[in-house]
């Protein structure tokens, strides 16, 4: 419906309204654009449309001018009149608001020519920036729900399973279990009543692809679940969404209601004898609830503690019935596989990892955002060709994948092809697809401590090896970061790490040591610097650094002294300033306010005594 109307306009302005852009003020830009367009009398020629997340979140607010695909980023309200007059009225695209990869390179006008977009391969995110998630007709306009129709009317349940198996699709929630095999286990499990669950807990900090898919294209997840339900023989489904994602819940509820109105959920779907309904359940801030057995307990209204498997959910899941649980991204792949066939899907990717994976590229990287790439792409391609490298000319140090269960991969492995096996071999794992890029200013011991703190806090406490082991490791890492660790601590960490791995009940404990073990493996010298020299090479660990003022470059501008909250800086105007180390709390404000032309405040390690 909307499509027909769209043709009547000369130009379309697509304003990204994803969470990132909205937080950067995209709705203010949209209002300003609409007002300015009316002011310049262009309202009959130009339509302003909001879209779902474009993925290039750090560049928000983003506006794309169609049909030419001109990409504008970081637009400010003041820029709007100029943009409307120059580009929309006079037809002269505005260079100053375009993307510039580096100061030496020219601006790139078209979205598809920007490295960040050019190297991506969109399957799950195929509707990116093209549809209104709150309007089911737009999804249907892109052949949405035609895979469901195919699955219901032209395929038998075993045929659906055969297709998914042949496609080679593996779970995108972390462990990479073959999806078709899992479905078959649940299908053949005895019992009339079966359940389908979509895992949208997305607990790995730094990963937000599931949020984006749920918010931008909820129907693709619903359609995937419907096809799975048909294949398995389930009549009830649950989507479990973490409580930190209220917008995803809202969009899902709208989508579910519309699907019901269109007869795509409920009784006798599309005139067949197949019936299926979906409920949304919200989490309440417990990381361990992403683990499947804990998640099921949480849906039942219980404390979310994992239980030993077997029995697997496929045999005994929700309320003791056979249950099939898959991740959001896994479900979102299903309609495409049914539409385009297993052969096509399995032609993408590597020998054992088929299709694409969405990664969230965050941390110390120029182009932050969500990227969908074919399995088998190298780490270097993701970081440099898509991510545009490290900001401020700094050195790349490592990338952390797999969340708290993953590990840190060093620069020596930049040629590593990214798939399930490749990442495991490097001591990390796929996890949900967070990629946190770290540069020379990131301390690897501090990162290990960060993750162990995380798992220690999130451990449900059921098994002692996880509860106590993670706590021990945090103690040791704290010691090292404070400069009181001994050399034997490294071997001690490795030993505790290995026991926790072996003796824990669920994936949380079994993988909790990975961040420690990989950082010791690849960055041992950084541990040793903390221990032997009481030095933090990345200048992060508070106990091992001091802030000092370089007398050579201090011009006595007094800015640091005025801003110091602890009155630790003394010095008169135009005279060299000094920091009283006994008063300094190392908050870092002096460093951040010292004018770049002086760069007089510096960090140093070991700490000044």
């Amino acid at each position, binding site marked *: 419906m909307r499509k027909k109307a769209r043709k009547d306009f000369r130009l379309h302005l697509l304003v990204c309204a994803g969470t990132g852009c909205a937080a950067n003020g995209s709705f203010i830009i949209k209002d300003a654009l609409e007002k300015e367009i009316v002011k310049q009398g262009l309202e009959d020629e130009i339509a302003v449309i909001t879209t779902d997340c474009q993925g290039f979140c750090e560049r928000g607010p983003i506006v794309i001018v169609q049909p030419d695909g001109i990409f504008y980023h970081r637009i400010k309200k003041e820029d709007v009149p100029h943009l409307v007059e120059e580009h929309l009225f006079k037809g002269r695209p505005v260079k100053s608001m375009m993307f510039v990869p580096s100061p030496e390179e020219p601006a790139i006008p078209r979205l598809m020519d920007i490295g960040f977009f050019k190297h991506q391969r969109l399957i799950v995110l195929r509707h990116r920036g093209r549809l209104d998630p709150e309007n089911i007709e737009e999804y249907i306009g892109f052949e949405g729900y035609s895979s469901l129709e195919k699955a219901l009317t032209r395929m038998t349940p075993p045929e659906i399973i055969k297709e998914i198996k042949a496609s080679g699709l593996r779970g995108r929630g972390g462990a990479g279990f073959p999806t078709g095999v899992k479905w078959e286990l649940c299908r053949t499990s005895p019992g009339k009543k079966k359940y389908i669950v979509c895992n949208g807990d997305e607990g790995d900090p730094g990963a937000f692809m599931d949020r984006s898919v749920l918010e931008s294209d909820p129907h693709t997840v619903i359609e995937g679940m419907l096809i799975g339900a048909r294949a398995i023989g389930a009549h009830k489904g649950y989507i479990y969404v973490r409580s930190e994602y209220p917008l995803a819940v809202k969009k899902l509820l709208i989508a579910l209601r519309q699907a019901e109105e269109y007869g795509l959920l409920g009784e006798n779907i599309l005139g067949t004898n197949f019936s299926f309904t979906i409920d949304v359940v919200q989490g*309440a801030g417990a990381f361990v609830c992403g683990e499947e057995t804990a998640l099921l307990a949480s849906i039942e209204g219980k404390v979310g503690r994992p239980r030993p498997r077997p029995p697997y959910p496929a045999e005994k899941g929700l309320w003791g019935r056979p249950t099939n649980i898959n991740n959001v991204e896994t479900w979102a792949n299903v309609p495409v596989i049914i539409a385009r066939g297993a052969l096509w899907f399995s032609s993408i990717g590597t020998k054992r990892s088929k299709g694409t994976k969405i990664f969230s590229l965050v941390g110390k990287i120029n182009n932050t955002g969500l990227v969908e790439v074919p399995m088998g792409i190298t780490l270097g391609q993701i970081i440099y060709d898509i991510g545009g490298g490290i900001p401020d000319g700094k050195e790349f140090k490592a990338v952390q994948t797999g969340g708290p269960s993953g590990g840190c991969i060093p620069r020596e492995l930049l040629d590593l092809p990214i798939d399930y096996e490749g990442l495991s071999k490097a001591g990390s794992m796929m996890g949900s697809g967070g990629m946190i890029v770290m540069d020379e200013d990131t301390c690897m011991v501090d990162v290990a401590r960060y993750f162990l703190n995380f798992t220690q806090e999130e451990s449900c406490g059921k098994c002692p090896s996880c509860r106590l082991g993670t706590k021990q490791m945090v103690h040791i890492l704290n010691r090292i970061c404070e400069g009181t660790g001994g050399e034997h601590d490294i071997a001690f960490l490795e030993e505790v790490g290995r026991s926790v791995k072996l003796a824990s009940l669920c994936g949380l404990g079994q993988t909790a040591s990975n961040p420690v073990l990989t950082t010791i493996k690849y960055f041992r010298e950084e541990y040793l610097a903390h221990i032997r020299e009481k030095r933090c090479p990345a200048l992060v660990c508070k106990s091992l650094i001091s802030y000092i003022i370089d007398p050579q470059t201090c011009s006595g501008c007094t800015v640091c002294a005025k801003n110091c909250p602890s009155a630790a800086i003394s010095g008169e105007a135009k005279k060299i300033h000094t920091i009283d180390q006994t008063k300094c709390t190392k908050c870092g404000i002096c460093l951040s306010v010292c004018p770049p032309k002086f760069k007089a405040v510096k960090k140093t390690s070991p700490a000044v005594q």
Partner: protein
Amino acid sequence: MSKIEKILKDHHYKRSRIIQILQHVQAEYKYLPKDILESVSQKLKMPLSTIYSIATFYAAFSLTPRGKHLCTVCMGTACHVRGAPDVLARIEEKLGVETGGTTDDKQFTLETVNCLGACALAPIVVIDGTYHGQTTVNKVGGLLDKYHEKKGT
């Protein structure tokens, strides 16, 4: 109908929906008041101890009243490597409370969260539901002051 009756009715008095019920109670009262939990326990015929075990297990629930403004600092990995610990330390110092605490004047409650899924804007501080991206140690002061000023209004 009392507020609590309405919440329970919306969830069909189902014990399996206890987590969602507590979420609604918290949305209504900003925390989980003891007397309300007692009445939930009676009405659902569910032991109070079970309700407490759920309320204490899940990090989203608070058993103590919160301040007028809720300040949440993201401590997810992306925010961590971009300086969230310094931002948090600065906020703790500025408000004079530790994480999880409420200021004496009941203006602010300070909490942390592990990733809001908006990592591109790291580090993030959320105040009363509004996201403030790319926060720095020296922006924090002004940010909090803005909310303090609203005191009278």
